[in-house]
């Protein structure tokens, strides 16, 4: 009975999903393009966009499968020089992997969240370089993996604060959290 109820609650229709994702995508694109490079942190610049994509993969309503992550990736692709679809594919895969990881790990745990963030950010950055290398613009795998690891290491601790902060913001905006732990966006 509980399982049936949890399943029903998971399928709560999302509310203002696309508006929320587009606003977040545009804001994060501006942050990555304009603000973060000015800090001049080099390889240690946090990848907050991917962290948000991971949050969407972990907590977004299961209705519509991984369309939310795909749209988020497309927004980032539009403000990037790379091929259209690179981040869309990577974030869709991240969504799928996050859904699988969620069945075994509790992302609300302050120990698990940074681990998931590290894995997610590392995989997306390594995947990004893989697609660059496939197009003949790779920078060498040693340098690329080192950079992906540095970015992931600096982004992971943000998950401890960012995930609860986003829970709070969504609750303030009137989004409902189901028993399965998913928000209706």
């Amino acid at each position, binding site marked *: 009975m509980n399982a049936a109820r949890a399943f029903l609650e998971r399928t709560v229709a999302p509310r203002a999903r696309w508006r929320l994702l587009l606003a977040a995508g545009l804001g*994060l*694109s501006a942050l*990555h*393009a*304009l603000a973060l*490079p*000015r800090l*001049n*942190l*080099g*390889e240690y*610049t946090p*990848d907050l*966009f991917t962290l948000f994509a991971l949050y969407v993969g972990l907590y977004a309503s299961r209705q519509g*499968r*991984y*369309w939310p992550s*795909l749209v988020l*990736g497309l927004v*980032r692709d*539009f*403000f*990037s*020089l*790379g*091929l*259209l*679809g*690179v*981040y*869309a*594919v990577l974030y*869709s*895969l991240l969504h*799928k992997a996050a859904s699988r990881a969620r069945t075994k790990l509790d992302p609300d745990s302050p120990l698990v969240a940074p681990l998931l963030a590290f894995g997610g950010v590392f995989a997306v*950055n390594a995947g*990004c*370089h893989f697609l*660059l290398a496939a*197009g*003949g*613009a*790779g*920078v060498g795998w040693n*340098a690329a993996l080192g*950079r992906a690891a540095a*970015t992931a290491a600096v982004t992971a601790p943000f998950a401890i604060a960012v995930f609860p902060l986003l829970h709070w913001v969504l609750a303030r905006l009137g989004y409902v959290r189901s028993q399965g732990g998913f928000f209706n966006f």
Partner: protein
Amino acid sequence: MPRLREKLSLLWLVQHPLVATCILLALTLLLPYTRVAERLKLVTFLPLAHAAPDVPQAEESGLSETERARRELLFERERVAQLAAENAALAAALAGARALAEPDPAFAAAVLPPAVPARVIFHGDASTWRHCLWINRGRAHGIVEFMPVVSGRTLIGRVYMAGDNHACVQLVTDPGFAASCVIVDPARPGAAARGVLRGNASARPHFPRLELEDVPLGDSVSAGQRVLTSDFSGQFPPGLNVGVVREVIPQAGFLQVRLEADLDLARLDVVQVLLHKRPELEAQALALLRRGKG
């Protein structure tokens, strides 16, 4: 058969977004000449190009004579400050060019093609792996893809995609950027080493450190030597400044040459697009043959 029909329907694609995106990605990879994705991206930045006029415009009817004069004074001051900054950058570039021209007359003889000045309207890229900026000049001003973009006489990048009134510039730090270069030693004119400049997706694009690949091991390259573009590939005019050699690391068969670029890319407000088109293959071959005979 009904199952196959079901699989090929549009609804099936909607239910499998990853497959749909892979098809989109494959289309952007396989059909580069249609440039659909680039056109879509150009549309994204269209409002920004329109929002950045060359001269600030405002309603003047409601202003008194004193307010109008004060406003004009402010505009003039701003313009003078901008011109002074640009003048300083150009003077520095000219001094560098003169220093190089003394030992190498061929460099002094290399005349740059006509240029279209453009203002930077957006600087930055949402991806940490790519580096670009957007300018407020496009096809309507004679700009097409792959034209070199400079500041003074220093190479900044090349036009990656061009709309009617705006264009995207791929910076020298972008991993997709490549340019044929020569390393010149002012003390020994005539002895120049060749190499290929490649963007290394430097995470510090404001203070770029670049790398020169494929420099033969026997060539004498040392820190402090200058790196200029060569016309080997025909893509860039010869003699554009790139940077200064900072470090030389011998590798298996080649030298890895690390450079420091001449410009802080984040401070660029005005750039020039050189109206230089890559010559046709036949014309390029003829020019090489003529040079060989001479």
